[in-house]
């Protein structure tokens, strides 16, 4: 890092990059990944691209915001930001998070205790703009100056002046997508200030007022899901075809009869997967079908639009999109008259539907919802399935998805399964509710424009990659195959990109997958190994 960045710098010299980040700034990784010159070179943002889209924060472009053609257009956006800022602090427009927001904007004492808890800040070489407190302080000063009476005078008197202009707005927009909202900073704060929430609220302001959001989360995310049924673009017919194909494939592979029921009324549980699993990791929904059928569970999938995709990117950027999708999930369960909805291995689905949407699902939409972790634990220890843990006798470590563990407190069920079924299970340090984010949280795992993947893997995921290497430090070579259990679709997306980026399967023998795959791999009735030692 070359220089200190002050809070008010965010509104200055808007055509320049405020605080560049580069490979050379980053702390080294353990061998054989310690040589910077052997690491992939970051994709370059060409000058003509810089003219076309805004690139004024750190040299990374996650959002591809087009440059307006006129100064009037810029000013119109600035004005809309100011209007949105005021709405963010009103009861009518933001009752959903007003109290936590005000507590976080009004009572931070700037002790910076949260800084060291943030893997992005520490692993960026401590770039000032990535401090959890930097974006929060910008929002705090803007709110005091522009959203409260007498704010402009107060800003002058207190020396906390900040200018709201095109540079501030655009840099803040990018900066809202340099935090995975893992909330490790909030956990460390002695006062309980939540800078992850500040990120959430900023993203909301941009989406709900200016209509700005990453296209992967909005157009190709929540909008596509509400229009077609899934953020993958799969409509109900395609989903049923794909699941049928997965069932056939699994039957052939395991020599068991695998069948996934659809739209079974009055089933005990409705299982909703992240639909991305069906395309990227079909063995995961396949393994769920094997385990649930073997345990004699009365279950069903849904072929209703939205009802077959647990994804809810609204959690990351827009309260209304979150509510729209959560309502559809609850309506599906109500229509099928099931007893409960069970979340598949998807972290943000857990948080969105189990807790965040809890106070939106009123009346008969208040359907029981639970995580797959306690259900799988119940099955594994029920005695209904015979297991042979020696089939999982390879090093296994567990990645704790932030949304399941830190945010929901579901810590032990998955561990009890792994301790039972995986003789060489070992923890990462730290783990459980103190875990580090994979670097793909808050929607990052599905965002790969421009050079954002380079940043997401090298900076946001750096701490996690180091943790994985450290967990397997006793057997570092590729001759010993190792498994990172990541029971979350977004986390798996990030693992895939990260392990692939560093060539970790070839160099260290590390691959990744979900929890339920390990359960199936240990089943006595499944003769051939279910885990495939390949990148997928």
């Amino acid at each position, binding site marked *: 890092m070359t220089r200190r960045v002050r809070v008010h710098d965010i509104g200055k010299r808007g055509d320049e990059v405020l605080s560049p980040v580069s490979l050379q700034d980053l702390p080294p990784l353990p061998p054989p990944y310690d040589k910077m010159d052997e690491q992939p070179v970051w994709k370059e943002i060409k000058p003509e691209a810089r003219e076309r889209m805004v690139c004024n924060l750190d040299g990374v472009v996650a959002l591809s915001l087009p440059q307006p053609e006129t100064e009037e257009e810029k000013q119109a956006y600035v004005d809309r930001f100011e209007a949105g800022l005021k709405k963010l602090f009103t009861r009518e427009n933001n009752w959903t998070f007003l109290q936590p927001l005000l507590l976080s904007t009004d009572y931070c004492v700037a002790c910076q205790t949260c800084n060291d808890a943030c893997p992005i800040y520490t692993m960026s070489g*401590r770039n000032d703009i990535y401090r959890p407190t930097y974006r929060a302080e910008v929002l705090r000063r803007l709110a005091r100056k522009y959203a409260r009476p007498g704010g402009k005078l107060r800003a002058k008197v207190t*020396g906390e002046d900040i200018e709201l202009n095109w540079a501030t707005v655009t840099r803040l927009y990018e900066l809202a997508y340099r935090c995975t909202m893992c909330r490790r900073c909030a956990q*460390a704060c002695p006062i*309980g200030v939540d800078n992850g929430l500040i990120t959430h609220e900023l993203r909301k302001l941009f989406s709900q007022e200016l209509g700005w959001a990453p296209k992967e989360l909005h157009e190709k995310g929540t909008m596509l899901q509400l229009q077609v049924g899934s953020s993958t673009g799969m409509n109900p017919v395609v989903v049923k075809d794909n699941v049928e194909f997965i069932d056939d494939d699994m039957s052939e592979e395991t020599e068991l009869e695998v069948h996934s029921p659809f739209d079974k009324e009055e089933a005990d549980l409705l299982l909703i997967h992240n639909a991305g699993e069906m395309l990227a990791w079909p063995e995961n929904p396949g393994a769920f079908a094997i385990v649930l059928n073997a345990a004699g569970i009365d279950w069903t999938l849904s072929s209703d639009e939205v009802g077959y995709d647990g994804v809810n990117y609204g959690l990351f950027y827009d309260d209304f999109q979150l509510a729209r999708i959560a309502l559809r999930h609850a309506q599906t369960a109500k229509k099928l008259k099931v007893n409960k909805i069970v979340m598949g291995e998807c972290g943000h689905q857990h948080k969105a539907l189990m807790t965040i949407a809890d106070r939106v699902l009123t009346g008969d939409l208040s359907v029981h919802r639970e995580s797959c972790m306690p259900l799988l634990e119940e099955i594994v220890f029920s005695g209904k399935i015979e297991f042979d843990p020696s089939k999982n006798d390879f090093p296994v470590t567990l990645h704790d998805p932030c949304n399941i563990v830190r945010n929901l407190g579901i810590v032990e069920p998955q561990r009890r399964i792994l301790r039972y079924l995986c003789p060489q299970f070992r923890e990462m340090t730290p783990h459980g509710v103190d875990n580090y984010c994979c670097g793909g949280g808050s929607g990052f795992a599905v965002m790969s424009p421009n050079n954002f993947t380079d940043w997401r893997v090298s900076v946001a995921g750096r701490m996690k990659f180091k943790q994985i290497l450290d967990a397997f430090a006793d057997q570092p070579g590729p001759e010993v195959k190792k498994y990172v259990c990541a029971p979350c679709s977004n986390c798996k997306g990030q693992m895939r990109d990260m392990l692939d980026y560093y060539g970790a399967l070839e160099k260290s023998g590390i691959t990744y997958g979900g929890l339920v795959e390990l359960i199936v791999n240990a089943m006595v009735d499944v003769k051939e190994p279910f885990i495939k030692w390949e990148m997928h």
Partner: protein
Amino acid sequence: MSGSILLALAYVLLAVFVVAAVLRTVRIARLPVHLRWELAPVPKEKTRGRYGGSYLEAYEWWKQPREESVVAELLYMLEEILFLKALWKHQRRLWWWSFPFHVGLYLLAVAVGLTLVEGALAAAGVLSPAWSALIHGLPWLAGAAYVLGAVGAVGLLVSRLARPSLRALTTPVALFNLVLLLAVFVSGAVTVWSVSDLPARAAGLAHALLTATPPHGLPAALTTHVVLSLVFLAYLPFSQMMHFVAKYFTYHQVRWDDEPLVVGSRLEQEVQELLKQPVTWSAPHLNADGVKNWVDVATEEVER
């Protein structure tokens, strides 16, 4: 400063403190219920709390009884309030200054409390020898408060100015807050050092305050300290130093608020009222017009 002016000033500044502190606290408490945003660990979880687990770990959790421990929650709070455990765990370098600073404030609060009780007992004419013996230890208690507080305040000031990571986001207001508190602690230390009959003087002042009798003949050091302390108190509710109140809400109403919605509950009624509010956000995909409410916007079909 005459006794009458001091008394009037004290009442005004104390009134400002009480009214502003109550208003600010009530304002936070009356903010609408929000969506759930809990964060592990939630210490009231009886057995799972020790590793950060929650009731959501249980199979069909809604059928299981909630096992909560008030004792575990209180212990967690006590450790945090008395020992600043989070700071100890996450930024020990600052704890060495912040801890004496806060202990100084706690001891000062105790000393003021004892003095007020002394004044009240004196006004009621029920002073006992045992109480009088206790109050003679007041200079030691206050002295410890001032020394610890001053050492902490200086350490925090130096840290904020010398450590680049802290200086970058330290505002002039944060420095002013520390300087003001340092002035309170230093003036107090000077008072303890220079006023020989401090317990009697302090008790007399408390008595004067409680009986609205103008005090007279107060030493300049004590007067200065009292005025500075009152100014600090009146300023406190307008500053970020009210975090000791906010902290109750950030912990109990955000981090530890994991109450599930139950159909027919008061919580559900409250939420249903909030959902009736009009929405004025302007983004096109919301199609809000200031008349449609939250339910209308959330249940509207999106354009295909």
